[in-house]
């Protein structure tokens, strides 16, 4: 097997360049690559286009990169938990492209799977359809949607091995597996890096072929947005 281990997040993101397109895994603050976001923040890379289902909150996740104005454009499905985001959007400092969540997930998968375009019913008759080819199949109308690919995909997994095989936990899986397939360079940060052979081959969520760099992250905060409990 091929060893893909790098020392840590600084090395993993060292060549992310100004104006690069990044995919970042996660749904809300669940399953986000906390360590890599910190390193990009420190590195100060500018003009980023970030493809991520959400944009973090004011002081965590991608929200941190918005605050420092490192993000030029967000491509997301829902961005409603971030007041700095709102300010930058309304002032015209930030570009935003909103995509239905399922279409976003499928466009990223298509990018990784070498499918340049496919038909989806989401958004027919809405402003999402503007400028898109429409076609009817079996009496239902669909929109032609194109793949998404990125210069760097940054994902967070629960466990990973030195060959880049990944296993996610709970709903922290979300967009991470598809994004792992759609980056020219895919960087995986994991809570636990295990030796080769320790993961069951039958239970791997992301095969190592998609991952170029892997490291064990530190100090995961895993902030909860809506702490809801049963009495």
């Amino acid at each position: 097997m091929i060893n893909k281990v790098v020392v840590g997040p600084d090395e993993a993101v060292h060549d992310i360049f100004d104006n690069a397109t990044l995919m970042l895994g996660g749904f809300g603050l669940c399953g986000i690559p906390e360590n890599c976001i910190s390193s990009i923040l420190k590195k100060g890379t500018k003009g980023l286009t970030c493809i991520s289902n959400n944009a973090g909150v004011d002081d965590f996740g991608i929200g941190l990169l918005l605050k420092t104005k490192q993000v030029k454009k967000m491509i997301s499905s829902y961005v409603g938990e971030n007041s700095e985001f709102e300010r930058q959007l309304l002032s015209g400092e930030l570009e935003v492209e909103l995509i239905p969540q399922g279409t976003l997930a499928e466009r990223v998968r298509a990018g990784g799977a070498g499918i340049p375009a496919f038909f989806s019913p989401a958004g027919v008759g809405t402003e999402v359809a503007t400028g898109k080819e429409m076609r009817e199949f079996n009496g239902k109308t669909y929109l032609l949607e194109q793949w998404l690919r990125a210069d760097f995909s940054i994902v967070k997994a629960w466990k990973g091995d030195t060959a880049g095989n990944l296993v996610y936990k709970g709903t922290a899986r979300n967009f991470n597996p598809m994004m792992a397939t759609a980056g020219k360079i895919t960087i995986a940060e994991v809570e636990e890096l295990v030796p080769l052979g320790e993961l069951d081959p039958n239970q791997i969520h992301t095969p190592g072929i998609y991952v170029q760099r892997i490291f064990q992250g530190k100090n995961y905060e895993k902030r909860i947005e809506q702490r809801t409990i049963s009495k």
Partner: protein
Amino acid sequence: MLDKTGIAKRIAQEVGDGMYINLGIGIPTLVANYIPSHLHVVLQSENGLLGIGPFPTESKIDPDLINAGKQTITMMPGSALFNSAESFAMIRGGHVDLTILGAMEVSENGDIANWKVPGKMVKGMGGAMDLVASAKHIIVAMQHCSKEGASKLLKKCTLPITGIKCVKRIVSDLAVLDVLPQGGFKLLERAPGISVDQIKNATEGRLEIDGNIPEMQV
């Protein structure tokens, strides 16, 4: 007139045994609390779970287990976790039997608007456009009128559309109504204490009233 709990309770009566159901954020999430325990249903969370359980106790909170509203949750025995592409494959492929979601406006031909208010903040459509474009059966939980008293059951939506010709049934604070295939709202039930006239006055879209309209049993 129903409060949010009342709407959730009435919608819970629409649930059938063996259904896979996607519950939207807000009132739809409350529906889970009122599904009769003898019915075997599975709740889908579009961020990657089939088999949503109750909210956790303090000691069981897991930041890696949330629903689409970002609330901490638990799993039922027999649950399955999956990625977002698989989740929307289920939705788009017609495997989810029932979608319950909120709306700001519904038109008499079944269009729904629930994702954007121009000039105010744009939060994004999340999974709503996928859900309404694909669901076999869609029930909308909503207020019949705005705080200012303007009808939200319209001839034509004024807000940006989430999906066209998709809503099948509406449960509002005032009534249960079906969207007719040929267009128009068919009044099925009145909320407790609400008259047909009150519903007429609160409905801008074409309202079909056929015979005696019973009061809801909630």
